């Protein structure tokens, strides 16, 4: 009985949470301009979205392109910068380590508006023309701390001597990096990359302040302007539906992979223990 009420509570909450998204998904299959009036089943909006037709969805397509391009560049650079930084911070000691950890946490604590305004003032101060580059730099600023946080636990799990061991065994520093260090850190780097990518996709305020006046639009700023003009471009409905499905699949895949990796690790541990016990008992 207790379990029934608990489950009921969870599902009521989930239904409430998802009702707007479900509504959008349902009405992505009809052509009507306003939400709520069903004018028969149609996939026209999906066709418009991909063909770039329909009312103003040409600029929507370019906004999607910009969003993906910025997210891709920002997340890859963040991953590289953040991984190198994590290795450095991990090897720092005492005050220096504390100071770096504190600096690293500032972009995570700051609300988007503060990050946006402060970077806007920076670009004005430096007379830096705002556009793609300033937006990408701004995104790297708020993405990298999350990469550092994702890589850090992998560094503390790693045996600190294996990198030196590889060097002792004749590997060049770049070989040791590629064949020893990076494979050990890869899971943290990948989750940092994914986190950075989605944070960049999600951002509105920072992009809004740093995009300048060249008419650069990402999905978020496009939606903002669009909604202020009154009335949502109907092509946004299939787009939201597709993003929703994509994120759902992505999350499921990541979680299944994690469960599998956990099982594999447990199995390896069992095998190792088995051999150890055999070795100690002298039968191997």
């Amino acid at each position: 009985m207790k379990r029934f009420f608990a489950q009921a509570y969870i599902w009521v909450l989930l239904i409430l949470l998802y009702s707007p998204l479900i509504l959008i998904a349902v009405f992505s299959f009809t052509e009507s301009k306003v939400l709520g009036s069903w004018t028969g089943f149609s996939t026209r909006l999906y066709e418009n979205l991909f063909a770039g037709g329909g009312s103003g969805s040409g600029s929507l397509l370019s906004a999607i392109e910009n969003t993906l391009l910025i997210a891709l560049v920002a997340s890859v650079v963040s991953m590289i910068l953040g991984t190198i930084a994590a290795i450095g911070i991990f090897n720092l000691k005492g005050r220096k380590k504390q100071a770096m950890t504190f600096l690293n946490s500032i972009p995570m604590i700051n609300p988007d508006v503060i990050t946006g305004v402060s970077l806007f003032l920076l670009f004005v101060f430096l007379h830096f023309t705002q556009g793609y580059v300033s937006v990408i730099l701004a995104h790297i600023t708020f993405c990298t701390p999350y990469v550092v946080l994702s890589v850090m636990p992998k560094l503390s799990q790693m045996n600190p001597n294996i990198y030196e061991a590889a060097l002792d065994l004749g590997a060049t520093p770049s070989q040791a990096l590629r064949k020893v260090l990076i494979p050990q850190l890869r899971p943290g780097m990948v989750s940092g990359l994914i986190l950075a990518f989605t944070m960049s996709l999600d951002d509105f305020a920072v992009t809004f302040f740093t995009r300048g006046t060249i008419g650069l639009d990402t999905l978020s700023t496009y939606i903002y302007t669009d909604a202020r003009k009154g009335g949502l471009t109907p092509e946004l409905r299939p787009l939201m539906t597709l993003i929703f499905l994509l994120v759902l699949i992505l999350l499921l895949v990541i979680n299944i992979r994690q469960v599998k990796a956990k099982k594999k690790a447990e199995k390896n541990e069992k095998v190792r223990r088995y051999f150890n016990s055999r070795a100690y008992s002298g039968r191997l």
Partner: protein
Amino acid sequence: MTKRSTWSIPYLVFLVIFVVLPLLLVAIYAFQDAGGRFTFSNILRFFSDGDALSTFAVSIEIAIENTLICILLGYPAAWILANKKLNRSAVTIILFILPMWINALMRTLATAELFNMFGIPLGKGTLIFGMVYDYLPFMIYPIYNVLEKMDKSYSEAAQDLGATPWQVFWKITVPISKPGIISGVMMVFMPTVSTFAISEFLTNSKIKLFGSIIQENINSSMWNYGAALAFIMLIIIGITSLLAGNDDKEAAGGLI
């Protein structure tokens, strides 16, 4: 090993340019007039600006209400999700995390459309409702994270020693999950105060939050006053994060 500590230098340089310097610029602009002379007038202007003060009060009020509702709705959900007896499926947890990954503007817009469709007039009620929609996952996740890692033997021991389930909950579970609650409050409270697009969508620009007036001033080239407002907000963030302490980081980490 020690040599590799130098690997943190590129990031240190990056942080100084893109985090420290911008924040210093906020402070500098806040204490300058349009001609670049030192002045307190921007800060003083806020305290005599009736509109800005009332916006500030409304933002704090709405943020408190939003945070409280998120705790009231989110804590039981996190508790059920972390309880192996009450929830065996991992899918429900994924479903609660998923909205955090979808563009907040899109979710907000979808919510506003839902209100429009049912003919509910946009105002304070819809604002709080929409805010709870947007921020509930950010409250549930950190609390769930802490409760899930909690050592069950504490509550079992309390039970064995004669505590009622109610006592176990208030004296064991809640104190242990405090870092999760603090982290959740940080992830809900400050963003609610500082948001600007969300409040515009959900109230048809009838209610402004503090983030909106910062944005309006910056966008209409009132950089010094905008920076002063941002500076005031920075002070508040500094105070709240000092009060919250450092123990909230662990709960917020590992979003995947």
